[in-house]
């Protein structure tokens, strides 16, 4: 598998830093994600994955450094960036008392979809993702799999070019996780660029065009799965990851 060769990056991050109350969470990250590719951000807890992804999603303000997504600069065009990305994480929960349709309509309106487009898009997503049976039920009454499905629908409702997922499969059962993994592959095939963090190595191995190892707020290595295994002379991603991390200690 080859890394994207051209300069057509959907996500361009340069020297990104985030400091909370004198604690450095992200210590200068450079990262590029090519169009129509999947990049996996791998790292232990507290490595700075969530902070990085939240900065990319425009939820957190970077302390310093630059972020460009779909050509928009986060310092000046954060709203344009928010329109171009879909963000899904363990923390992005939905309102328990809204129904699936109300939820999608609410987020669709926030993404400035006009009335006609929004209705068509909601209908389409509900049928594509096989959500009709619970479309009129309140989120609080859904199973975790159904809720996660709704959450994915929410993230891709406005048809964003870039998807950012932060440990989206965490605490999900195998079937629900599998659904997300397959959805990502399908989205990639439609030309979407995807950046996601996980600590489930098999997911990363299966999905990613590019793997980025992150540890203590810094990128310690990146490349295709094969490149990383070759470099560490290991035969699986978990060993490659552990070896790389140990090498930095």
């Amino acid at each position, binding site marked *: 598998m080859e890394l994207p060769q051209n300069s057509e990056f959907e996500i361009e991050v340069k020297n990104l830093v985030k400091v*909370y*109350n004198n604690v450095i969470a992200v210590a200068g990250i450079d990262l590029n994600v090519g169009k129509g590719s999947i990049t996996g951000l791998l790292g232990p807890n507290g490595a700075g994955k969530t902070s990085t992804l*939240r900065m990319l*999603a*425009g*939820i*957190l*303000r970077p302390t310093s450094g630059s972020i460009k997504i779909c050509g928009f600069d986060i310092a000046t065009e954060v*709203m*344009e960036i*928010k*329109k171009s*990305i879909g*963000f899904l*994480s*363990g*923390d*992005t*929960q*939905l*309102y*328990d*008392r*809204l129904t699936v349709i*109300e939820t999608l309509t*609410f*987020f669709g*309106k*926030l*993404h*400035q979809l006009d009335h006609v487009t929004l209705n068509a898009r909601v209908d389409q997503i509900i049928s594509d993702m096989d959500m009709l049976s619970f479309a009129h039920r*309140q989120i609080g009454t859904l199973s975790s799999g159904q809720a996660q499905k709704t959450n994915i629908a*929410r993230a891709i409702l406005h048809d964003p070019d870039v998807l950012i997922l932060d440990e989206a499969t965490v605490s999900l059962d195998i079937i629900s996780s599998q659904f997300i993994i397959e959805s990502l592959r399908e989205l990639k095939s439609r030309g979407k660029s995807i950046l996601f963090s996980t600590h489930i190595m098999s997911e990363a191995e299966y999905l990613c065009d590019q793997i980025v190892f992150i540890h203590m707020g810094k990128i310690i290595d990146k490349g295709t799965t094969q490149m990383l295994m070759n470099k560490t002379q290991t035969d699986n991603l978990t060993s490659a990851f552990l070896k790389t991390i140990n090498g930095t200690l």
Partner: protein
Amino acid sequence: MIRKNYIKIVFKKELLDTIRDKKTLLINIALPVIVWPLLTVFITQYSTIQTLRQNERVSKVVLIGDQISAFSSAILADDKIQSIKLKDQFNWELDLFEVQEESKNVDFCKYNIKLNDAFKGSFKTVESMIQDGQVDAIIVQQSKNIDKITATLNFRLMLLYDSTNPDSEQAANRINNMLETVANNLINERINKAQINESLLKPFSYSINNVADQTKTMSNIIGRILPLILIFLIVIGGFYPAITMTAGEKEHGTLPTVLCTPITHIELLFGKYLAINVITIIGVAMNVTSISAVIYFGMAAFPVNISPMILIYIFLSLIPISMLFSAMFMSVAMFANSFREGQNLLTPVTLLAVLPAYSALLPGMKLNLITAMIPGVNISLLIREILIVPVNPEIIFITLIANVGWTLGILVIAAQIFKAEQVLLSGRTNIGDIFTLDRNALPVPNAQLSIVLFIISLMGTFYISGALIQYGIIYLVPAIQLGLFTMIPLAISTYFKMETTKVFQLQRPPLLAVIGAIFIGFTLFVSTNWFSSFMSPPESYEKLLLDVLQLNDKSLNVIIVFILIAVIPGICEEFTFRGIILSGFINNLKPVWAIVITAVCFACAHFSIYNFLPLLVMGILLGFVAWRTHSIWTGSIIHIINNGLAVIFARFKPESTKLLEKLKLSPYFPMFITGAVLVTLTGILLIYFSASKRIDSVNET
């Protein structure tokens, strides 16, 4: 730029979410519907039963003294008073302990009475017998006096009872009536015996009538309790929505989901704030409606005369306070990371909110200029006064402004909190960090700064006027105008390193605009006078204003008055209002709204309901002129001439305050008005076109 559409989307969602939340629904809708009728029925039934029971109850009375037998027959005749004989149960003795005074005519003695409790083997004072409820009242003969000349016996009685015990109070009333009857009978007996004509002893007769009828007395009682209950209900009405929409969302992890959509923090804040407000106001409306229903469907057994208009006033006066509480609750609840923590944080705040409402219970508290500025206190006193006496509109207006001012202040704080990502995303943060003012953060003013400056101007004007009014305009005007309206905006712009010329719009206006401003300045009073006729002030108010502004104070040089009342305000007020405040609003809102809101601020800062409308019109015009010409000087010219005319009229033609009324009688009146309005309009047009030319030429270059 704040986008209304986003606020609306969040607002509608929050409303829908809340409607489905049974807890909030119960507190805001079900509780008022149930509480008021139940409370009324309960109180009515309880008081009816109490009255019946008390009327039927026989009062137990102890009589102590050697002359007390004079009342035995009267007590026997009264079937509601029963004399208790203590001798059967108690050994009682009268100890002569002090002879205070001895004289020829007076045989005066005082008794210390102790009752020997046979059962407990101890002595008890008579007071404790009443407090224990063994008897309802005791009549003690304190002294006796035998007039040696007329050989008549007079004695002094003391009635002991416990006013906190209704039974005891009832007994005291009955005894009082009985004693009066016995005394009257004795007097009549002696008069007859002495063969004196009764009319000689009664040179006049009189009766006492309480002008406060039962209805008013009831209104007085309701007026003291109602504010407290209503404010308490507002507080619990806003409590849950405020926590659900802030800490609750943080706990459920729904905030990051919303924040990754293209909505700004401020739009999110306003959407939520509006929703909390509407829910609280619905709660208030439900309460007032429920109270009305109780009154009009006659559920209350007591007489109350509260007109629908008064209920509407009460409802309206509760809106600003519910706005204030919503903002306060939201700001505090935002710091909590879970619903439970939110409850812990908000509980002391609710106490703080309810506490001022107790002021309506305090008899000495009155709604005046000071209490009108204190949130909570002002509303509870206002409601009490609305129920009892006609309230001065000026005070209502100040109460309203004060609450709006406080609400805006708290909203500014809430906005600052909402901007802090650490607060929004459940992280820990120092409060100091949230309110740190980054000198580079505001290269140009924004709406938040405008609101802060408005609040400073409002509060500053109020307190400086209060402190310096007695020293006259020589001190008052420079302090407010130069100190408050000029130095503070300048200090702000310097602190944030703003471009002074741009922020204060200090550019030279085009010549045509200057001519237009002069046209408007000389004729504007005609239009503003017409607007002030919608709510004309009482004459006493006009006179007070003239005195305070020393407009007809001949001891002051007219040029000094002109400088103090026309020139200085004409420049300094423009600095604050058309300088920073308008610039700030224009950077966040559409110009038309920015101009209108600035004009409202301008009118409010003058603290007068009678002048509100004319000042609003003037403010809109000054705002338009400043916006159009990018210069505060154009507005200054209008402001100076307009105020200057008032000074000159007041000094040289004191009767001119009634100028328009006099002119109305003249056959040339319509011509005069039309002429003046036409000149004003020409001025406006001149300014409009002069500025567009200038802007075009800038664009061309």
